[in-house]
C-alpha cells in the first residue's frame, strides 16, 4: 500500500518539475552557504589549533630578552644550571617560511611538533636534522632544500620546525636563542630570574590574547551571515512545500476518502521531504565546499590582516561540516514543513479538500504571525536596552530581522489596501486588490528580499562607516613621513644623532607588553609634542590631555582597553605596583586587537629603565631625500625604512581584503533572494490563470495582463526596498554600536550613504523585474484556449 501511495505522491513532483527544482534549489542554496561558511570556520579553527599546538603559544610562560631580540646561549645554560626547567627556542624567517628551532629533549611533550610518531628515533633525528612541516608546506619546500622533510600533520601552514642546532645553522645565528619556553612545573626554591639572568624577563602565558578567542567574533560574524543565507534558502523551501501541499490538497482528500490512514500519509510525506533534504543537502554541501574554496583565500587574508592569525589557504574535507551541513538541511526542512504537516494532521478528512478550511487556518496563522512579529520586535527593544555581550548582540539582530520579516506581509497588505481605497477607476482598483491577493504566495520571497537587502544596507553601512573612520584614523596616526628601524642599541643612538639635525622631529617609539588592568596590553612611551597633539583626536578627553600626559601626570588609553576594563576619562589606571595615574584621553585604535596605553617617554624610561628605542617616526619636509641620505650616508638598509604612503597603502589594502568576504556573502544572499522571487512568480503563474481569465474575458488583453504582472513585481520590490532601508540602518546601528563594541572593543560613528542605498534599491527592483519578466511573457503568450478552460471547468 505504501508504495502505491508514495507513487501517487511522487507523481505530483513528476508533473511539477519546476516546483521540485525550486524546492531542491532552496535546499541546495541554504545548505551551500551555511556549510561553506562552516567549512571556512572549521579550516580556520584547525589552523589556530595547529599554530597553538606547534609552539604552545598562549599555553606556556616564556622568557624573553628585556631589550634586543636575542638570548645568549650562556644565559640559557645559567638558567638550566640554576634548576630552571626551560626549553630553548630560536625563531626567524627562512626562505619566506617561519623557521622554529626546538630542542626535542627539553621542549614540553604536548607540542605537536615534538611529539614522536611510532618508530621515531631520536638518534636518527639528531643525526639527519630533518625539517618537520605539514604536508602543504612540504609541497612548497621540496625544491628549496635538500634536507629530509618529516611530515607532521598538525603543524601550522608555512611553519618549519627543526632541531635547534639545524635552525641556528639555517638562520646563521649560531649560539643565539629567541626565547625560552618555561615548563609548567618547576622545582621548589629556584633562584629568581632577576638573580640568574637579569637581562631576561618572564612573559606570562596570555590566554586572553589567544588568537582563537580574538578571531571568535569574526567567525561568529561569518556564522551569522551563513545563518542569514540559510534562512533565506529555507524561506524558498517553505514556500515550495506550502505550495506543493496546497496543490495536493485535493489529492490528499481523495487518498483519505479511499482509505489511506492519516498517519501513513503524514509519514510518507515526511519521508518524501527527508529524501529531498538528503539529496538537496548532499548537493548543497558539495557546493558549500566550492564556495569555501573560493572564499578561503580572502578569509585567510582577513584573519592575517585583523589578527595576525595564519590560516591555511587550502581546504580539507572535514566530516564535521559535512555532517553539520546535512543536519541543518534536515532540520531546516523539518522547520519549513512542520506547519504544513501540522495542518495536514489537524484537518479532518471531510474538510481536507475545502479551501475555506485552509483559509481559516491561514487566517489564524496570519494573526499568530502578527503576534510573533510584535513579540520579536518587543524583545529587540528590550535587548537593545538591557542586553549585554556578543551573544545578546546577535540575539538582538536575529529578533530584529525575523520580527521585521514576519511583519512585512502585514505592512504590505495595509499599504496595498490604502492604495486600493485611493483608486477611483476599475482597473487600478482591481490591480491593487489583486496584488494584495497575491501577497500570501509571494510573501516568503519578499521576506527573503527584505532580509537580503537589509543585510546589504546594514553591512555596507557598517563597512563604509568603518572605512571612513579607518582612513581618518590612518591620517591621524601615521603622521610621520618616514618610519625607520634600528638593528640594535648602538645603531639606535647613532640614528638619533644622524636624524636630529636633518629632520623636523625624531619620535622614538618604545613599547613593552604587560598586563594592564588585567588585560594584555602594550605600554607605549611617546615623545609628546605638537606632532601628536596636532594630529591625534580623542573620543573623550580631559581639558588638557597632552599637557597632563607630557608631564607624566596622566595616561592616554585606546578605546579597546577603556571599554574592556570599564574605565573612562578621569578613572585611575594602574601601570605598576607603585604607580596609578588618571586617564586623560581615550583614543580610537582600529585594527588593533589588544589594549594600548600611551605615556610620556620620560615616564616610560622610569618604568622600563633598560628600554632602548629601536623604532622611530621621523618628521621631514623632504622624505625622499632623507631616505636616500639614510641609505647612502648612514648605511641603513632599504628594508629598515618605510615611508608614510607605503604603510598607509598597505593598511588600506589589508582593510579592503578584510571585507571582501562580507561583500561576497552580501552578493550571494541577494542572488538567493532574487532567485526566490523568480521561483515564487513562476510557481504562482500557473495558479494565476483562473484569477486572470475573468479579467481577460472582460476585455483586458493578454499583453496588458503581462505588463501588469511586471508592474506588480516592480511595486512589491520597491515597497520591500523601502521597508528594507530603515531595517538595514537599524541593523547597521546594532552592528556598529553593539556587536563591534563587543567583538572588537571599539565603537564606530555611523555614516549614511544615500547614493549606495539608491543603487541597491534600483538593483533590487531591476532584479525583481527580470525575475517577473519570464512569467509575464508566459502569461502574455498564454493561448486563449487555456484561459477558456477556466470557464469550462466551472460547469
Amino acid at each position, binding site marked *: *500500500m505504501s508504495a*502505491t*501511495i508514495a*507513487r*501517487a505522491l511522487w*507523481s*505530483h513532483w*513528476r*508533473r*511539477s518539475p519546476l516546483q521540485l527544482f525550486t524546492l531542491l534549489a532552496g535546499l541546495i542554496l541554504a545548505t551551500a552557504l551555511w556549510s561553506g561558511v562552516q567549512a571556512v570556520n572549521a579550516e580556520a579553527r584547525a589552523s589556530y589549533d595547529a599554530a597553538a599546538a606547534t609552539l604552545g603559544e598562549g599555553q606556556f610562560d616564556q622568557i624573553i630578552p628585556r631589550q634586543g631580540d636575542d638570548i645568549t646561549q650562556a644565559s640559557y645554560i645559567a638558567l638550566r644550571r640554576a634548576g630552571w626547567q626551560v626549553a630553548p627556542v630560536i625563531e626567524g624567517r627562512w626562505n619566506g617560511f617561519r623557521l622554529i628551532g626546538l630542542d626535542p629533549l627539553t621542549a614540553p611533550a604536548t607540542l605537536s611538533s615534538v611529539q614522536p610518531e611510532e618508530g621515531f628515533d631520536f638518534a636518527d633525528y639528531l643525526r639527519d636534522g630533518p625539517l618537520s612541516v605539514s604536508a602543504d608546506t612540504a609541497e612548497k619546500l621540496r625544491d628549496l632544500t635538500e634536507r629530509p622533510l618529516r611530515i607532521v600533520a598538525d603543524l601550522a601552514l608555512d611553519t618549519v620546525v627543526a632541531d635547534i642546532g639545524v635552525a641556528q645553522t639555517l638562520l646563521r645565528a649560531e649560539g643565539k636563542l629567541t626565547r625560552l619556553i618555561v615548563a609548567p612545573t618547576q622545582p621548589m626554591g629556584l633562584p629568581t630570574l632577576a638573580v640568574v639572568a637579569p637581562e631576561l624577563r618572564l612573559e606570562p602565558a596570555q590566554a586572553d590574547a589567544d588568537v582563537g578567542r580574538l578571531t571568535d567574533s569574526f567567525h561568529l560574524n561569518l556564522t551569522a551571515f551563513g545563518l542569514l543565507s540559510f534562512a533565506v534558502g529555507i524561506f524558498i523551501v517553505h514556500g515550495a512545500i506550502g505550495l506543493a501541499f496546497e496543490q495536493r490538497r*485535493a*489529492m490528499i*482528500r*481523495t*487518498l*483519505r*476518502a*479511499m*482509505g*489511506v*490512514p*492519516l*498517519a501513513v500519509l503524514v509519514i510518507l510525506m515526511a519521508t518524501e521531504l527527508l529524501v529531498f533534504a538528503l539529496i538537496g543537502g548532499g548537493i548543497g554541501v558539495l557546493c558549500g565546499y566550492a564556495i569555501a574554496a573560493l572564499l578561503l583565500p580572502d578569509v585567510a587574508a582577513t584573519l592575517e590582516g585583523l589578527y595576525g592569525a595564519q590560516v591555511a589557504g587550502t581546504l580539507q574535507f572535514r566530516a564535521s561540516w559535512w555532517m553539520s551541513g546535512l543536519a541543518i538541511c534536515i532540520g531546516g526542512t523539518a522547520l519549513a514543513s512542520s506547519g504544513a504537516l501540522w495542518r495536514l494532521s489537524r484537518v*479532518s*478528512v*471531510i474538510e481536507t*479538500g475545502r479551501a475555506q478550511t485552509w483559509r481559516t487556518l491561514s487566517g489564524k496563522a496570519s494573526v499568530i504571525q502578527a503576534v510573533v512579529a510584535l513579540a520579536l520586535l518587543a524583545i529587540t527593544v528590550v535587548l537593545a536596552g538591557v542586553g549585554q555581550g556578543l551573544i545578546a548582540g546577535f540575539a538582538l539582530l536575529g529578533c530584529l530581522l525575523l520580527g521585521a520579516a514576519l511583519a512585512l506581509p502585514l505592512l504590505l497588505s495595509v499599504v496595498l489596501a490604502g492604495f486600493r481605497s485611493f483608486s477611483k477607476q476599475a482597473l487600478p482598483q482591481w490591480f491593487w486588490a489583486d496584488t494584495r491577493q497575491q501577497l500570501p504566495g509571494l510573501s516568503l520571497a519578499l521576506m527573503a528580499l527584505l532580509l537580503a537587502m537589509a543585510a546589504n544596507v546594514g553591512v555596507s553601512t557598517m563597512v563604509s562607516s568603518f572605512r571612513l573612520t579607518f582612513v581618518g584614523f590612518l591620517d591621524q596616526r601615521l603622521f610621520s613621513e618616514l618610519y625607520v628601524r634600528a638593528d640594535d642599541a648602538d645603531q639606535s643612538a647613532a640614528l638619533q644623532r644622524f636624524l636630529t639635525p636633518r629632520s623636523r622631529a625624531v619620535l622614538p617609539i618604545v613599547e613593552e607588553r604587560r598586563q594592564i588592568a588585567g588585560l594584555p596590553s602594550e605600554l607605549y612611551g611617546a615623545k609628546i609634542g605638537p606632532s601628536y597633539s596636532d594630529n591625534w583626536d580623542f573620543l573623550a578627553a580631559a581639558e588638557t590631555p597632552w599637557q597632563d600626559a607630557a608631564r607624566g601626570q596622566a595616561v592616554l588609553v585606546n578605546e579597546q582597553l577603556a571599554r574592556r576594563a570599564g574605565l573612562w576619562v578621569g578613572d585611575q589606571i594602574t601601570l605598576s605596583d607603585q604607580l596609578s595615574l588618571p586617564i586623560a584621553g581615550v583614543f580610537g585604535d582600529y585594527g588593533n586587537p589588544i589594549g594600548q596605553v600611551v605615556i610620556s617617554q620620560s615616564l616610560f624610561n622610569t618604568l622600563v629603565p633598560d628600554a632602548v628605542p629601536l623604532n622611530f617616526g621621523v618628521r621631514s619636509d623632504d622624505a625622499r631625500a632623507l631616505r636616500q641620505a639614510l641609505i647612502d650616508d648612514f648605511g641603513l638598509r632599504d628594508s629598515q625604512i618605510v615611508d608614510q604612503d607605503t604603510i598607509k597603502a598597505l593598511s588600506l589594502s589589508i582593510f579592503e581584503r578584510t571585507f571582501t568576504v562580507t561583500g561576497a556573502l552580501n552578493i550571494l544572499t541577494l542572488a538567493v533572494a532574487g532567485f526566490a522571487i523568480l521561483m515564487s512568480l513562476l510557481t504562482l503563474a500557473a495558479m494565476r490563470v483562473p484569477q486572470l481569465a475573468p479579467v481577460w474575458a472582460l476585455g483586458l488583453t493578454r499583453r496588458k495582463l503581462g505588463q501588469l504582472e511586471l508592474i506588480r513585481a516592480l511595486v512589491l520590490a520597491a515597497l520591500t526596498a523601502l521597508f528594507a532601508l530603515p531595517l538595514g540602518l537599524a541593523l547597521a546601528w546594532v552592528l556598529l554600536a553593539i556587536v563591534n563594541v563587543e567583538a572588537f572593543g571599539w565603537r564606530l560613528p555611523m555614516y549614511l550613504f544615500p547614493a549606495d542605498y539608491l543603487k541597491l534599491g534600483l538593483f533590487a527592483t531591476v532584479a525583481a523585474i527580470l525575475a517577473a519578466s519570464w512569467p509575464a511573457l508566459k502569461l502574455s503568450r498564454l493561448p486563449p484556449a487555456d484561459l477558456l478552460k477556466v470557464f469550462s471547468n466551472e*460547469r
Partner: protein
Amino acid sequence: MLKLTDVTKSYAGADGPIEVLRGVSFEVNTGDTLALTGESGSGKSTLLHLIGGLDQAEGGQISFDGRDITHLGDAERAALRRSEIGVIFQQFNLIPSLDVGANIAFQARLARRYDAQAARALATKLGLEGQLSKYPEQLSGGQQQRVAIARTLAARPKLVLADEPTGNLDEDTAAQVLAEMLALVAATGAALITVTHSPQVAAQMGQTLRLSHGQLA
C-alpha cells in the same frame, strides 16, 4: 448488509450546536440501489459521510456486514474505505498527476485487489480504452466521471456511495454515465447509495429515501 439505527449528528454553530441528522434509521441489502434525496442542508451528504466512515456519528448505530462501525478509530475507518466501501464524488476527485490508467488502478492497488485484465475490461466498458495514457485535465467532465466510477469499481467494494455523481454533467452525458454506473454496479453485485437532487436519477434507483431537516420524511 448496512443497517442504520437512530443515527444522530450535529455540528457546532455560532448560536450553539446545529442538529444535522435526527434519528435516521434504514437498512440496505446486497445489490440494493438507494437514492437519498432532500433539499440542500437536509443532511444527505453528512449521512453519506457517516456511512463511508469519513465522519463519525454522535448517536445511534451504523453496522456494516454485521459489524458495528459507529465508533471505529481513524485507522479502522480508513481500512473500511480502502477495501469495503467505494466513494464516487460529484467533483470526480481524480489524482491530477496520475494518468487515467494509474487512476483506475489506484484504489484496487490500495485494496490489494488489482487485476489488470479486469481493470482494462472496465475501462473498455466505460469507453476509456483510448484515454488510458491521458491525464485528467485532458478529459471532458463525462470522461472524468467515468474514470472515477472505474476507479471505484475496480476495487470491487461491497458498497458504492455516490455523492451527486452526475451533478457536474450535462443532461445527456449524465444519463449515459448513470446508466453505465448502474449496469456495472449491478454486475459486481455491490449495493449503491446515491445522493441526488435529480428526480430522474432517483427514479432509476430501486428505493428512494427523502431527508428533511435531518429526518427521513
